[in-house]
């Protein structure tokens, strides 16, 4: 127990320290006027001028269209996999609905997978589709955050920067070097990194074992630093090759939190209000710690139905105890709980334990965090989502005290509030709408692995994960059907672009505004009071929207567990 809490404290302290270092680096990345020669070469190849200044409309359009081209390229490679060279295991190409799902999934930074990596992707696809889309989707998120913050930091300006510059720098100065170094640490710890496809072993008892290997480490590092989450293997970061030691598990966790948490510092630095950045960081951290405590408590107390069968779930010096179904020995309860909380907070979606086998309250947390979608959140978009709620908060408080709401010295008016509400409502619309649709489809029952409330949770989790661009799953659900592939594919696209684009618009509109001097009626947004109000608004809006659906899933399941009902 004490050692578990020590692990939490030390890991979160390291994260906080990295916030400052990386936050400064990203501030430099977004504001430096110098282009290095590799970047100049890239701009020449692309045929763009790094000096071009883009209106928010152009910035958003370039973002969407370049993403579309990358998604299409990924789709084509997946469809052509069988005729492309270099796979001794000759794995078949994905069907059109599955390739659409996969390409949407990876370009939107979701990384939902309706396929099993070891049996359906060649090493070339793992690199040229999966690793490629992981890198560029993360760079897109970071670039969007750059344009967004720049817009909020300017006054009477017509542009929010240059998308190509933000995207290229995010790739070259941030993601590539970090991923490369991290990948080497991972290999040292036991992760494969090879172009070989498999190794055949004869076990001690004489059975044959086929070990699938490949370029795992280079995928794993960007998978976490880029808050992507899709596994090289079907079972993701629970697989010993994807996560061989407690140290790699810890680095995965720190990797996921790195950019989302540091962007709060970058935000404060770029708008020249450092305290604002820390106020946002505080809001993230408060929610994170509360959710972590809930998962850890629920998982360590174990499954009461197993206790009566004679299973010893006590935490002692000789065993981790707790609910070990679907978990790995090397992580135990503490490392697993921290991973579960982080992967759905930072909307990564990799898993180091089977979320479907979490206790009801343990499974409630990932669902709730994806529904709120801004407990740290994904690279770039997490901060953008939090600012969305911050604007909503100043608006609500402004209504209560009867003054024009102001944010960062600018008036918040009807036009940007409409964009904000669009971004806020697209999220539940997609989650609840598609879940309702799936519940009406008779074919859904055939995809479920569990009955009762857990079966409903599987479906709700799938669309929440897709829309929140998370990608983790209650993996019992067989989602490789044309219906699920297509609807989850659309949920991912909706969830990504209908929250991102309205907020780019908000940044553009705010950039054009004049600043107004702060008066006695101005609500300061960098105080503890405001952080509290912000968390309150997030919980209330999220709660009002999603509690009915949660009541039908994990909450009723928890009550049934206490009464000993099985399905």
């Amino acid at each position, binding site marked *: 127990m004490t050692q578990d809490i020590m692990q939490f404290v030390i890991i979160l302290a390291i994260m906080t320290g990295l916030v400052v270092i990386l936050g400064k680096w990203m501030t430099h990345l977004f504001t430096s006027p110098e282009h290095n020669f590799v970047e100049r070469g890239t701009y020449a190849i692309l045929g763009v001028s790094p000096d071009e200044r883009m209106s928010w409309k152009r910035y958003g359009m370039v973002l969407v269209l370049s993403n579309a081209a990358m998604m299409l390229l990924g789709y084509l490679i997946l469809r052509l996999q069988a005729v492309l060279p270099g796979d001794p295991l000759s794995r078949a190409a994905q069907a059109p609905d599955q390739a659409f799902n996969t390409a949407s999934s990876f370009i939107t930074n979701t990384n939902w997978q309706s396929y099993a990596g070891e049996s359906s992707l060649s090493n070339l696809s793992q690199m040229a589709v999966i690793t490629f889309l992981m890198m560029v989707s993360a760079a897109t998120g970071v670039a969007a955050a750059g344009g967004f913050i720049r817009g909020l930091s300017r006054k009477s300006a017509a*542009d929010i920067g240059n998308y190509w510059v933000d995207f290229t720098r995010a790739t070259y100065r941030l993601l590539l070097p970090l991923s490369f170094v991290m990948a080497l640490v991972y290999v040292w710890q036991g992760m494969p990194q090879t*172009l070989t496809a498999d190794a055949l072993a004869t076990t001690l008892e004489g059975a044959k074992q*086929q070990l699938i290997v490949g370029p795992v480490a280079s995928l794993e590092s960007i998978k976490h630093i880029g808050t992507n989450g899709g596994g090289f293997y079907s079972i993701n970061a629970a697989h010993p090759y994807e996560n061989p030691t407690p140290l790699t598990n810890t680095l995965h966790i720190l990797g996921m939190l790195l950019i989302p948490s540091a962007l709060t510092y970058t935000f404060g630095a770029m708008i020249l209000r450092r305290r604002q950045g820390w106020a946002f960081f505080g809001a993230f951290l408060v929610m994170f710690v509360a959710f972590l405590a809930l998962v850890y408590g629920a998982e360590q107390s174990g499954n009461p139905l197993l206790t009566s*069968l004679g299973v010893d779930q006590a935490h002692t010096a000789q065993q981790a105890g707790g609910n070990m179904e*679907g978990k790995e020995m090397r992580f135990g309860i503490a490392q697993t709980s921290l991973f579960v909380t982080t992967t759905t907070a930072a909307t990564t979606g990799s898993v180091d334990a089977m979320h479907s*086998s979490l206790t009801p309250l343990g499974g409630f947390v990932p669902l709730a965090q994806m529904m709120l979608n801004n407990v740290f959140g994904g690279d770039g978009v997490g901060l953008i989502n939090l600012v969305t709620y911050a604007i909503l908060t100043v608006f609500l408080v402004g209504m209560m005290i009867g003054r024009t709401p102001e944010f960062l010295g600018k008036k918040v008016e009807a036009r940007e509030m409409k964009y904000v509400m669009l971004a806020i409502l697209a999220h539940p619309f997609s989650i609840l709408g598609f879940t309702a649709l799936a519940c009406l489809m008779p074919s859904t029952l055939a995809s479920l692995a569990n009955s009762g409330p857990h079966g409903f949770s599987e479906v709700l989790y799938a669309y929440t994960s897709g829309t929140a661009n998370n990608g983790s799953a209650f993996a019992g659900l067989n989602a490789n059907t044309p219906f699920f592939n297509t609807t989850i594919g659309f949920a991912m696209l909706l969830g990504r672009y209908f929250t991102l684009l309205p907020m780019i618009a908000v940044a553009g509109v705010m950039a054009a505004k004049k600043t107004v001097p702060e008066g006695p009626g101005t609500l300061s947004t960098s105080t503890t009071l405001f952080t509290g109000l912000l968390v309150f608004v997030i919980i209330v809006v999220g709660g009002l929207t999603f509690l009915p659906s949660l009541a039908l899933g994990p909450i009723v399941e928890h009550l049934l567990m206490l009464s000993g009902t099985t399905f």
Partner: protein
Amino acid sequence: MQSTTQTMAPVTHSATSGITRPVIVSAVFFMVVTGLAYPLATTGVARLLFPAQAEGSLVTRNGQVIGSSVIGQYFAKPEYFHGRPSATSGADPADPSKTVDQPYNAASSAGGNQGVLSKKLIDAVTARVAAYRQENGLAGDAPVPADAVTASGSGLDPEISVANAKLQAARVATARGVDAAKIQELLDKNTSGPQLGLLGDPRVNVLELNLALDEAFAARPAAQ
């Protein structure tokens, strides 16, 4: 170079003018940089620095690959320590169109994905508890460590808890016809504590322990 900051270019308001070429070129160019150059460069450096790990930490004995030190494998014989239950499956050798249970199938990692209220889970654990007690000569009401009767996440978990290993030590000693204290000694040597003294829980790597057993004591001839 200072021109970039001093004379500012006019703002482009048109959303789409002149972006067709950069959009198409960027997809191909960044695929080559991030999808080919980056993983290939990592592969090259990794092979140089950590050749054994890069190929999958393979373990060989008498020149033959017997597995990977980070991947679990299936043990059922009494003279070996047994790993955790595994939910992986594989193609039925008799009829490849069907899948059958195939524990520790490293070509198809899988968890059980059963919820806590699942009857399937309760039935499976009930059966595993009974089998574990019988196998290890425990009393009918002896508590059984959680990790010994629950399926791991990957189905390839290479490790078990210290509590679980201790309960199996007597069986292994009997099957090999050696003193229980010697098995215990070997077990202690193969127990790893938290990594860096902080991360994770104490645990035992089953394959490494069994290899050490084979090295120290030949299996009893009758137990082939």
